[in-house]
């Protein structure tokens, strides 16, 4: 499979790898998985009192696109408002990373992770 330069960038050099302490106030997390395909994304977000995301981290296991979308959303969410985060859809993720149709389900998984984490 030929991956886009954006996918390769996030796959090869991901930022914000790790976990946050979910016992801390303002921390939300999501664990979304597709057991049939071995994909798992864990996403952590830290909100401040102004409902702004001061930190977001991820862990991911799966194909290169799975890792890339997780790395991308963790990067995208840095310093974003809750509203901005709510508007991050699979379509936006797929467009930004130039994800092929056959891998669109990875973007859906990432959207799911964002929505779950910010509503935690």
């Amino acid at each position, binding site marked *: 499979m030929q991956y886009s330069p954006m996918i390769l960038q996030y796959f090869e050099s991901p930022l914000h790898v790790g976990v946050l302490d979910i016992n801390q106030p303002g921390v939300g997390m999501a664990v979304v998985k597709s057991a049939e395909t071995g994909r798992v994304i864990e996403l952590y977000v830290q909100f401040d009192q102004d409902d702004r995301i001061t930190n977001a981290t991820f862990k991911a*296991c799966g194909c*290169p696109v799975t890792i890339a979308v997780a790395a991308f959303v963790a990067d995208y969410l840095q310093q974003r408002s809750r509203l901005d985060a709510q508007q991050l859809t699979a379509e936006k993720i797929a467009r930004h990373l130039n994800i092929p149709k056959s891998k669109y389900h990875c973007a859906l998984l990432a959207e799911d992770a964002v929505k779950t984490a910010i509503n935690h």
Partner: protein
Amino acid sequence: MSKPIYLDYMATTPVDPTVAEKMHFYLTSPDYFGNPSSAHTFGLKARAVIENARAQMAAVIGAEPQEIIWTSSATEANNLALKGIMSQRQYQKRHIVTCQTEHPSVLEPCRYLEKEGCSVTYLAPKANGLIDLNELVAAVREETVLISIAHVNSEIGVIQDIQAIGQLARSRGILLHVDAAQSAGKIPIYLREWPVDLMTFSGHKVYGPKGIGALYVRLKPKVRLLAQMHGGGHESGLRSGTLATHQIVGMGEAFALADTLMTEENRRILALRTRFWHNLQQQNPDIYLNGDPIDRIAGNINMRIDGISSEALLLDLHNIAVSISSACNSVVSQASPVLKAIGLTDAQAYSSLRMSLGRFTTEAEIDETVARMTTAIARLRALSPTWPMRP
């Protein structure tokens, strides 16, 4: 970027230089381009070369030359064997026993034959990939006509006990077809002594060219089958189509060469595999072999690497060529049926990959692969929420 490393010899092999040279001669010579069916000197010369190649193959597998039918590929040979037997009037709508881990070129003809009214039992192998002979006995019925089992599995490289399966088949008057695409030229085959009725061979898996295969059809006792390619009646009426002299030369030469090199090559490749596996495991915990470790051909390493996706590992390995059989291209699972059949979960199948060593694999390539895999595994495990594995 470093030189590419090829570790996918079970997918295909490069044509051995000796084989390529001989093929080139016959491809370019003004003396051997004739139609081998023609009665003039051009045809007779080409025919003689083909019969020499047929004798070469026969000698390697312990068969008579006239028991070898040339086909375009192992896939065609498998189709000819299965459909050629079961389309005969007395065998229509009867029963076949095969295994869930067979190559698609056996499974798909079986599925086709089911639509034509045959019944098929797809045996599940044991966790090590080998067939349980008791289960085979239990699966065989009054109306069973044919058993089809691969000698060596194309994904996990395990070696089935063809002689025991053959003895069972003989005792019940059932025909045995063996797909030897991954075994011939790598491990000894003695068809004069083995109770096998049909056997499939591939040229490009044993350093011969692509586009040529063969089917062994036993003459004593005579196995009858119906041709699937009709035309000029070539190959005793079993497979019509003008024979490709240079391709057949290539296959004969590849088999003869493989036979000469077999013992030493196996020893060398096994030593490389042992070195690779030992070093990889020493530097990376929780890596497991899929399939039996002993009853396995020398070059195959089908492994599971916990905590990561092999699709991601493949990308990190850049120009190291290995094979994965499970890829996430949709929401629905596409985990390898072979790995699922030996008891792996979907997730474990997605963590697995097949590496296969061969004639031109070097120690330097093995060592570089271990080093690059170790780096990649560490990187991907650091990203992974499923690592370390929780009990």
